[in-house]
Protein backbone atom coordinates (compact mmCIF):
# COMPACT_ATOMS: atom_id res chain seq x y z
CA UNK A 1 0.00 0.00 0.00
CA UNK A 2 1.91 3.00 -1.34
CA UNK A 3 -0.10 6.08 -2.12
CA UNK A 4 0.18 9.83 -2.32
CA UNK A 5 -2.53 12.49 -2.19
CA UNK A 6 -2.24 16.20 -2.82
CA UNK A 7 -5.26 18.03 -1.50
CA UNK A 8 -6.58 21.38 -0.32
CA UNK A 9 -8.67 20.01 2.53
CA UNK A 10 -7.23 18.92 5.87
CA UNK A 11 -6.50 15.23 6.29
CA UNK A 12 -8.08 12.79 8.67
CA UNK A 13 -5.07 11.59 10.59
CA UNK A 14 -7.00 8.93 12.49
CA UNK A 15 -8.56 7.46 9.38
CA UNK A 16 -5.24 7.33 7.57
CA UNK A 17 -3.61 5.73 10.57
CA UNK A 18 -6.27 3.06 10.83
CA UNK A 19 -6.18 2.27 7.11
CA UNK A 20 -2.41 1.84 7.16
CA UNK A 21 -2.48 -0.29 10.31
CA UNK A 22 -5.17 -2.54 8.89
CA UNK A 23 -3.15 -2.99 5.70
CA UNK A 24 -0.05 -4.19 7.55
CA UNK A 25 -1.60 -5.82 10.62
CA UNK A 26 0.41 -8.71 12.02
CA UNK A 27 3.41 -8.18 9.77
CA UNK A 28 4.37 -4.68 10.90
CA UNK A 29 6.04 -4.07 14.23
CA UNK A 30 6.43 -0.34 13.78
CA UNK A 31 4.59 2.60 12.29
CA UNK A 32 6.22 6.01 12.25
CA UNK A 33 4.18 9.08 11.42
CA UNK A 34 5.49 12.54 10.70
CA UNK A 35 3.25 15.58 10.51
CA UNK A 36 4.52 18.98 9.49
CA UNK A 37 2.63 21.93 10.93
CA UNK A 38 2.66 25.60 9.97
CA UNK A 39 4.69 27.53 12.53
CA UNK A 40 3.76 31.04 13.62
CA UNK A 41 7.33 32.27 13.27
CA UNK A 42 10.03 31.96 10.67
CA UNK A 43 13.42 33.63 11.13
CA UNK A 44 11.93 35.89 13.84
CA UNK A 45 9.15 37.05 11.50
CA UNK A 46 5.55 36.46 12.50
CA UNK A 47 3.94 34.23 9.89
CA UNK A 48 0.37 35.11 8.94
CA UNK A 49 -0.15 32.46 6.28
CA UNK A 50 1.52 30.10 3.88
CA UNK A 51 0.39 29.51 0.32
CA UNK A 52 1.37 26.25 -1.36
CA UNK A 53 1.25 25.64 -5.08
CA UNK A 54 1.94 22.45 -7.03
CA UNK A 55 1.91 21.07 -10.56
CA UNK A 56 -0.80 18.40 -10.61
CA UNK A 57 0.53 15.14 -12.00
CA UNK A 58 4.18 16.06 -11.96
CA UNK A 59 4.19 16.76 -8.22
CA UNK A 60 2.56 13.42 -7.44
CA UNK A 61 5.15 11.64 -9.58
CA UNK A 62 8.01 13.48 -7.88
CA UNK A 63 6.70 12.15 -4.55
CA UNK A 64 6.01 8.64 -5.85
CA UNK A 65 9.65 8.40 -6.90
CA UNK A 66 10.74 9.25 -3.35
CA UNK A 67 8.29 6.74 -1.87
CA UNK A 68 9.40 3.94 -4.20
CA UNK A 69 13.06 4.56 -3.40
CA UNK A 70 12.32 4.56 0.33
CA UNK A 71 10.20 1.41 0.05
CA UNK A 72 12.96 -0.56 -1.60
CA UNK A 73 15.81 0.84 0.46
CA UNK A 74 14.16 0.27 3.85
CA UNK A 75 11.91 -2.69 3.04
CA UNK A 76 8.72 -0.83 3.91
CA UNK A 77 5.42 -2.68 4.19
CA UNK A 78 3.50 0.53 3.43
CA UNK A 79 4.12 4.21 2.91
CA UNK A 80 1.53 6.96 2.63
CA UNK A 81 2.05 10.66 1.91
CA UNK A 82 -0.54 13.40 2.06
CA UNK A 83 0.43 16.96 1.20
CA UNK A 84 -1.84 19.95 1.39
CA UNK A 85 -1.81 22.90 -0.98
CA UNK A 86 -3.55 26.27 -0.99
CA UNK A 87 -3.71 28.80 1.82
CA UNK A 88 -2.64 27.49 5.24
CA UNK A 89 -2.37 29.15 8.65
CA UNK A 90 -0.24 28.65 11.76
CA UNK A 91 -1.17 25.40 13.49
CA UNK A 92 -2.48 23.83 10.26
CA UNK A 93 -1.22 20.42 9.21
CA UNK A 94 0.75 20.64 5.94
CA UNK A 95 2.14 17.19 5.35
CA UNK A 96 1.70 13.67 6.69
CA UNK A 97 4.11 10.81 6.09
CA UNK A 98 3.32 7.32 7.41
CA UNK A 99 5.80 4.45 7.14
CA UNK A 100 5.22 0.88 8.32
CA UNK A 101 7.99 -1.69 8.64
CA UNK A 102 8.74 -4.89 10.49
CA UNK A 103 11.23 -3.14 12.76
CA UNK A 104 11.37 0.34 14.15
CA UNK A 105 14.82 1.35 12.90
CA UNK A 106 13.69 1.00 9.28
CA UNK A 107 10.39 2.78 9.85
CA UNK A 108 12.18 5.74 11.48
CA UNK A 109 14.86 5.97 8.82
CA UNK A 110 12.39 5.68 5.95
CA UNK A 111 10.16 8.40 7.36
CA UNK A 112 13.14 10.76 7.66
CA UNK A 113 14.35 9.82 4.19
CA UNK A 114 10.95 10.63 2.68
CA UNK A 115 10.73 13.95 4.55
CA UNK A 116 14.28 14.97 3.61
CA UNK A 117 13.66 14.34 -0.07
CA UNK A 118 10.21 15.94 0.06
CA UNK A 119 11.94 19.10 1.27
CA UNK A 120 14.34 19.21 -1.65
CA UNK A 121 12.87 17.28 -4.59
CA UNK A 122 9.09 17.48 -4.33
CA UNK A 123 7.57 20.02 -6.70
CA UNK A 124 5.99 22.59 -4.42
CA UNK A 125 6.30 26.33 -4.19
CA UNK A 126 5.60 28.10 -0.92
CA UNK A 127 4.77 31.74 -0.45
CA UNK A 128 4.97 33.05 3.05
CA UNK A 129 3.00 36.08 4.18
CA UNK A 130 4.49 37.70 7.27
CA UNK A 131 3.44 40.80 9.16
CA UNK A 132 5.59 42.92 6.84
CA UNK A 133 5.83 41.19 3.46
CA UNK A 134 5.07 38.21 1.26
CA UNK A 135 7.78 36.20 -0.49
CA UNK A 136 8.41 32.88 -2.17
CA UNK A 137 10.42 30.63 0.12
CA UNK A 138 13.61 28.91 -1.04
CA UNK A 139 14.74 25.45 -0.04
CA UNK A 140 17.31 25.90 2.73
CA UNK A 141 20.94 24.84 2.63
CA UNK A 142 20.16 22.90 5.80
CA UNK A 143 17.63 20.83 3.83
CA UNK A 144 20.22 20.29 1.09
CA UNK A 145 22.73 19.16 3.67
CA UNK A 146 20.26 16.74 5.25
CA UNK A 147 19.57 15.02 1.96
CA UNK A 148 23.29 14.54 1.32
CA UNK A 149 23.57 12.04 4.15
CA UNK A 150 21.41 9.53 2.23
CA UNK A 151 23.80 9.50 -0.70
CA UNK A 152 26.48 6.85 -0.65
Amino acid at each position, binding site marked *: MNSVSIQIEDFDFAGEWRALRDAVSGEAGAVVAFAGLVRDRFDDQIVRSLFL*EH*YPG*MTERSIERIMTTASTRFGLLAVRVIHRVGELYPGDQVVLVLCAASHRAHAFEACQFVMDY*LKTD*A*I*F*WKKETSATDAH*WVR*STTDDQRRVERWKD
Partner: protein
Amino acid sequence: MNVHVRLFAQAREAAGAGQIDVLGLSPEADVNELVDRLGGQCGERLHEALRAPGVRAAVNQEIVDCGYRLTDGDEVAFLPRVTGG
Protein backbone atom coordinates in the same frame (compact mmCIF):
# COMPACT_ATOMS: atom_id res chain seq x y z
CA MET B 1 2.18 25.43 -34.03
CA ASN B 2 0.31 25.96 -30.78
CA VAL B 3 1.35 25.01 -27.25
CA HIS B 4 -0.24 25.26 -23.86
CA VAL B 5 1.90 26.97 -21.22
CA ARG B 6 1.65 26.47 -17.46
CA LEU B 7 3.25 28.92 -15.07
CA PHE B 8 3.88 28.59 -11.35
CA ALA B 9 4.86 30.75 -8.38
CA GLN B 10 6.90 33.85 -9.36
CA ALA B 11 6.38 33.15 -13.08
CA ARG B 12 2.63 32.84 -12.65
CA GLU B 13 2.53 36.10 -10.73
CA ALA B 14 4.67 37.85 -13.35
CA ALA B 15 2.28 36.76 -16.08
CA GLY B 16 -0.85 37.36 -14.06
CA ALA B 17 -2.06 33.93 -15.23
CA GLY B 18 -1.29 30.29 -14.56
CA GLN B 19 -2.14 29.02 -18.04
CA ILE B 20 -1.55 30.67 -21.39
CA ASP B 21 -2.13 29.36 -24.91
CA VAL B 22 0.62 30.37 -27.28
CA LEU B 23 -0.49 30.22 -30.89
CA GLY B 24 1.34 30.34 -34.18
CA LEU B 25 4.85 29.40 -33.11
CA SER B 26 7.22 28.52 -35.95
CA PRO B 27 7.24 24.75 -36.69
CA GLU B 28 10.85 24.40 -35.43
CA ALA B 29 10.33 26.41 -32.25
CA ASP B 30 12.28 25.28 -29.19
CA VAL B 31 11.84 26.21 -25.51
CA ASN B 32 14.12 29.24 -25.90
CA GLU B 33 11.97 30.64 -28.67
CA LEU B 34 8.84 30.07 -26.57
CA VAL B 35 10.40 32.01 -23.68
CA ASP B 36 11.12 34.97 -25.97
CA ARG B 37 7.64 34.79 -27.44
CA LEU B 38 6.09 34.77 -23.94
CA GLY B 39 8.18 37.83 -23.07
CA GLY B 40 6.85 39.61 -26.12
CA GLN B 41 3.27 38.50 -25.45
CA CYS B 42 3.15 39.07 -21.66
CA GLY B 43 5.89 41.59 -20.93
CA GLU B 44 9.44 41.93 -19.64
CA ARG B 45 8.55 40.91 -16.10
CA LEU B 46 7.57 37.41 -17.24
CA HIS B 47 10.60 37.20 -19.52
CA GLU B 48 12.86 37.91 -16.52
CA ALA B 49 11.00 35.42 -14.34
CA LEU B 50 11.47 32.69 -16.96
CA ARG B 51 15.18 33.52 -17.36
CA ALA B 52 15.79 33.57 -13.59
CA PRO B 53 18.42 31.13 -12.28
CA GLY B 54 17.10 27.69 -11.48
CA VAL B 55 13.96 27.85 -13.65
CA ARG B 56 13.41 24.51 -15.42
CA ALA B 57 11.14 23.75 -18.33
CA ALA B 58 9.01 20.59 -18.54
CA VAL B 59 7.31 19.38 -21.68
CA ASN B 60 4.35 17.10 -21.07
CA GLN B 61 5.58 16.81 -17.48
CA GLU B 62 9.13 15.72 -18.33
CA ILE B 63 12.06 18.05 -17.61
CA VAL B 64 13.77 19.22 -20.82
CA ASP B 65 16.60 21.62 -21.62
CA CYS B 66 16.08 24.98 -23.27
CA GLY B 67 17.01 23.74 -26.74
CA TYR B 68 14.22 21.12 -26.72
CA ARG B 69 12.14 21.23 -29.93
CA LEU B 70 8.43 21.60 -29.29
CA THR B 71 5.57 19.75 -30.96
CA ASP B 72 2.10 21.07 -31.68
CA GLY B 73 -0.17 20.55 -28.68
CA ASP B 74 2.64 20.24 -26.11
CA GLU B 75 2.04 21.29 -22.53
CA VAL B 76 5.06 23.37 -21.55
CA ALA B 77 5.54 24.19 -17.87
CA PHE B 78 8.04 26.59 -16.37
CA LEU B 79 9.11 25.55 -12.89
CA PRO B 80 10.85 28.16 -10.75
CA ARG B 81 13.21 26.70 -8.15
CA VAL B 82 11.02 24.60 -5.84
CA THR B 83 10.68 25.12 -2.11
CA GLY B 84 9.99 21.47 -1.47
CA GLY B 85 7.25 19.97 0.68
